[in-house]
């Protein structure tokens, strides 16, 4: 009886929260552990090949070469120069044929020189089928410079070349192969302010570019 009374009146014991010792919670994590491939104070030389496939009248294969100086893990500055040649699409060829007799006053990309900043806030690791861990970063780039384009309609009375100031936002990723080399994937959108001689008019033109490249890195400082 006594034991029953004690059992009915005694306060139940609250279970205490588990106290984990020696384990870090997810919310405690703010950095990637074991950054195998630091970027600070390193120089990156990169080359890419790309395609500008989004224009209705011209498809432009191109190549870019660049250099990037990484001040920190997130910020770097550099320059990139490239060249290419806009090829007429089937739509353009159909339009200029005798059946239609219409020629868009289009301009083909020839070359560009840009300089600017890259901001890489993301450094990450990915497990590929559990067999391999890839280290990669994601960056945003803001560049400015000049592009040179050529009119498809000749105009030697004036000039068929257009020198266009260019703003170039970009987003890309670098996947580390090893400590001194990475694969680059970048989507870049060059925004040109272009003066067209025959119509004496100024237009905003976009050269959206998809690039795949390879980088070589200088040695990391110990």
């Amino acid at each position: 009886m006594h034991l029953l009374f004690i059992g009915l009146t005694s306060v139940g014991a609250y279970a205490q929260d588990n106290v984990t010792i020696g384990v870090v919670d997810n919310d405690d994590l703010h950095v990637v552990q074991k950054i195998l491939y630091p970027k600070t104070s390193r120089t990156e030389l990169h080359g890419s090949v790309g395609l500008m496939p989004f224009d209705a009248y011209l498809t432009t294969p191109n190549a870019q070469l660049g250099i990037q100086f990484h001040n920190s893990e997130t910020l770097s500055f550099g320059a990139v120069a490239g060249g290419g040649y806009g090829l007429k699409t089937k739509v353009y060829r159909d339009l200029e044929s005798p059946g239609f007799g219409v020629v868009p006053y289009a301009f083909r990309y020839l070359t560009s020189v840009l300089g600017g900043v890259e901001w890489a806030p993301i450094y990450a690791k990915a497990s590929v089928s559990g067999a391999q861990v890839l280290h990669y970063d994601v960056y945003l780039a803001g560049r400015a410079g000049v592009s040179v384009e050529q009119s498809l309609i000749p105009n030697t009375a004036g000039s068929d070349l257009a020198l266009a100031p260019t703003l170039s936002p970009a987003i890309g990723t670098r996947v580390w192969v090893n400590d001194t080399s990475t694969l680059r994937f970048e989507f870049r959108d060059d925004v040109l302010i272009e003066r067209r001689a025959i119509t004496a008019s100024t237009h905003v033109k976009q050269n959206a570019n998809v690039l795949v490249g390879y980088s070589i890195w200088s040695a990391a400082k110990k």
Partner: protein
Amino acid sequence: MTLKRTALLSLCVLLLAGCNRYDLFRVGGFKQESFSNKVDLLFVLDNSTSMTDESIALANNFDDFISSLADQQELPSDGVTDATANYIQSVRERGSVLNYQVALTTTDIPNDFGALKTELLARGDNKIEQRFIDDLLCNATCFCDENTPGCLCGPKDEPGTCDVPYDATFTCTNNPEFPGSVSQQYLDCVCGETKWQNANCGSGAEEGLEAVLMAMCRSHPNPPSVCFDKSHSQLDKSDIGSNNEGDRELLRESSLLVPIILSDEGDVSRRLVNGQVSIDTYTEIFDQFRQRMAFVVVGPDNDWDQDGLGYFDETYVYGTSTTSRDSDGGGEYDGTEVENGRDPTGGGDDDASANPGSKPPRLPCSEVPDGAAWSVVRYETMTEVTRGRYIPITEAAPGCGPRRFTEILDQLGEMLANLADAFPLQSIPQTDTITVIVDDVEVTEAGSTTDDLTGQSVFTDGWSYRSTDNAIVFHGTAVPEFNAKVEIYYLPQEGKPRDLPF
């Protein structure tokens, strides 16, 4: 705003601004594919009593002329050798690739009013030379004799007494071939005995420009209202299409009409005042047809500079007298000349109100009466305006003999062979956007000056835009070679060349 939303919004802005915009130009020209090689030849023959010799000469020589255009032979096309031979032939014999039609009317408006006197013949027709010559001789040539007022011929069948030769050796057969020269016997055979004599003799007023206009009015499916203006025309709506034969039309779409006026006198067309040299009335009417035209006139002597010192020198010798056109030294057209009434109204020497007899002087090798040289200037101006050719029907002074017709027809053939100097455009261009490329080399725009005599533009080498037929015209050495690749880029005025399928 979260980072995610910001990124999404930025992407949308980029996508919305992603469609590059381009002006759409028209491009004309191409490599022979859209250039028309269609030529409609309209002979306009003066069938007055003074033109019998010239009509006979035309018939005698027409065979050779039309043969150069009537190449019936199919070009072989088997392999590189044939292709090379074809190209060489086409360069050497440009007439052989012309798609031509030929017909004839007369300058006699009161009787013919621009009606065709021959069949409307085309390349490929059977015996085209024979049929044209027979129609010319039987329906359009004045063979007069002593019964025709003003005729200088003697009785028929007497050798040497008429403009028509006598050939006793000719034997008439059914549908005889033209023997190479006209004879009384041949005419009896093809036209009917006596039916050719004193027939087809037109009035003494040669209205070449009006005849061309009436012929066009009769041919066009929707002619301008001026064709039925009762103050000048006898045509009515029932005459529309009367110069066409079946589905064959005299005025074909995108063809070049070449009126070839043959006359030993000037033009006295009824829509112009006698003495008036300006032909704007007719050029404005022709513009309404929107037809490419190039006038050829085989007409009276037009050698204005007979003393060889230039047209605007201070003295000009004609006959046995000397006339100074610039007696005050102020220049020919200073408006102050009153000698011989040259500019009594002060409106300029060549305005319509000036004394017609004062400018230009008599032409000694022509049948044109003194003081009526303005009638020749009309033809001259029309050939210049349309970039055709003026060929004097006689040799130059002092000989003044008849010009060999083979020479005339050679010049005509040469002109026809050089037709590829104008490319019509499909839309009205913004002229400051025109770019012309020939064989991948840009051609510059031609400079122009004004001819003092006719007031017409004279161009340097290059191209110019001709608004009358909305065409790019090449000048001088800029005329493209046969088979050249011609590209003409321009922004159309309406801003959008056509509705695109997307």
